[in-house]
């Protein structure tokens, strides 16, 4: 379809190229150009001024001065101070843990959805998607009320007699993990459901007739067929979780170190724009790894 007959130019009021040019220009101006500026500022000196960086970009004619003024100071700070490395590492660790937990919760849910009677499935799908439409910030806030000391969870467990000390989950890494799994769960459920929905039930029945145990059927039929969905779901949870800001800030407290929060602090509190930009560039380089890995998987799957 993508290579089908192009929109004919005859009678098209605006020239056909405008269909491409308009969004193209927008993305170049407001997506690509800003990133080049981030790269440029990451390589600038920190200055206590407004805007707090130097030197200024003064024109193409000064290309040589520009190259001479490049400064790796921010990157040196980034690699020299263990705070930043720790933040990158703990972001990766928290995101990976959240992805794994989300997978463990999402898979049974998606499997049950796909095995439910056909006429229930649209309603179940809407039920899973609907929380994704409600505000992200509000969903994180909902967990603040549940996890805070003397919050809803403490009160519930105490009234059931399960605990006598408050759990003190708020402002811990556990709270961040709960928030992440909760917020990103639909991203994991939907792709797995999509791949399981296409699963041919007769395959399972045939395997059962041939004497395969339920466990065997699950491992050698369901899992391989769900693999594209699992990979897509893991990718969709893992990547945004690494750079997440709102969840660690509201649920993690000062103890939880994540790189999105470090970037925010460097920018808004410390006003070190070159350092914040360097943090962003290094984060992008890290994100490129899962991105390329997923692309390779998708290409192999398509072939």
């Amino acid at each position, binding site marked *: 379809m993508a290579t089908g*007959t192009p*929109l004919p130019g005859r009678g098209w009021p605006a020239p056909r190229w405008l269909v491409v040019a308009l969004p193209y220009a927008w993305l170049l101006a407001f*997506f690509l150009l*800003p990133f080049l*500026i981030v790269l440029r500022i990451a390589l600038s000196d920190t200055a206590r001024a407004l805007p707090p960086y130097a030197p200024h970009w003064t024109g193409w004619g000064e290309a040589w001065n520009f190259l001479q003024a490049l400064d790796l100071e921010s990157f040196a700070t980034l690699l020299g101070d263990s705070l930043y490395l720790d933040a990158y590492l703990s972001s990766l660790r928290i995101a990976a843990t959240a992805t794994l937990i989300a997978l463990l919760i999402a898979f049974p849910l998606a499997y049950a959805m796909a095995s439910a*009677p056909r006429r229930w499935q649209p309603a179940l799908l*809407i039920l899973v998607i*609907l929380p994704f439409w409600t*505000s992200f910030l509000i969903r994180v*806030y909902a967990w603040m009320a549940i996890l805070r000391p003397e919050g809803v969870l403490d009160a519930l467990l105490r009234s059931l007699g399960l605990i006598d000390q408050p759990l003190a989950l708020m402002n811990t890494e556990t709270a961040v993990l709960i928030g992440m799994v909760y917020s990103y769960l639909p991203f994991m459920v939907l792709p797995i459901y999509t791949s399981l929905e296409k699963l041919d039930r007769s395959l399972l029945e045939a395997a059962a007739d041939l004497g395969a145990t339920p466990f065997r059927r699950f491992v050698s039929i369901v899992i391989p067929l769900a693999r594209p969905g699992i990979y897509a779901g893991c990718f969709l949870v893992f990547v945004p979780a690494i750079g997440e800001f709102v969840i660690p800030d509201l649920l993690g407290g000062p103890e939880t170190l994540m790189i999105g929060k470090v970037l925010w602090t460097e920018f808004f509190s410390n006003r070190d724009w070159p350092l914040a930009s360097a943090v962003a560039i290094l984060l992008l380089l890290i994100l490129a790894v899962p991105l390329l890995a997923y692309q390779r998987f998708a290409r192999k799957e398509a072939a």
Partner: protein
Amino acid sequence: MNRLRAPHLLALVFGIAFLYLPILVLVLYSFNASRLVTVWGGFSTRWYAALLQNQALLDAAWLSLKVALVSASLATILGLLSALALARSGRFAGRTLFAGMIAAPLVMPEVITGLALLLLFVGMDAERGFWTVTIAHVTLTACFATIVIQSRLVMLDRSLEEAAQDLGATPLRVFFAITLPMIAPAILAGWLLAFTLSLDDLVLASFTSGPGSTTLPMRIYSSVRLGVTPEINAASTLLITLVATVVVLASLLIKRDALART
């Protein structure tokens, strides 16, 4: 396998409960007469009344609504054009870069996009406020709109368009009489997605807004950081109700439209 078995039912109940219980708790406590979040002091709508007195919150809500309406509309137009470019324009110079730039904001951490746009606006010496936030939201949400509309475009049966063309309709006529009505549900879905994402965004708005242009999520965030208050619960409940109503109505509309076509 057409009947629901016990473990499946359990997985469904547990999963759906996990998704909805926190929201339910939040809504419940918005009607709590007590200011304490864990003590139930009886049913009351006092926090909703308090909302109407909170001018700062109302101003922020109004600004967010304006930004969301304008940015969702612009994003849908750009998204429609991008979807047409990707699905219908065949190969063009720089298509790979274009497709990459459409997909990138979907996985880009918002803190990076926000930082990048702010640095651009500072470099342009643009006054930060309504328009800078709107531009940031268009850039993010146009990509989501593109993907929704594009997925509908590539599934479209081309024979109707070709028939109309063969009967002598101009391409413009074909587009408005055939293509546009057929992709209308996707356009609506794309607009809604852009609208709710804009209404929800905290990070991009925090970077790109200026003094005096505080959006609703920014206002909620700053009071939430200080702790849980029933007033924010009330505001959240209103927001959730609004979005859920619109989304359910839209999905019913789209479903009816799909049924009418079969």
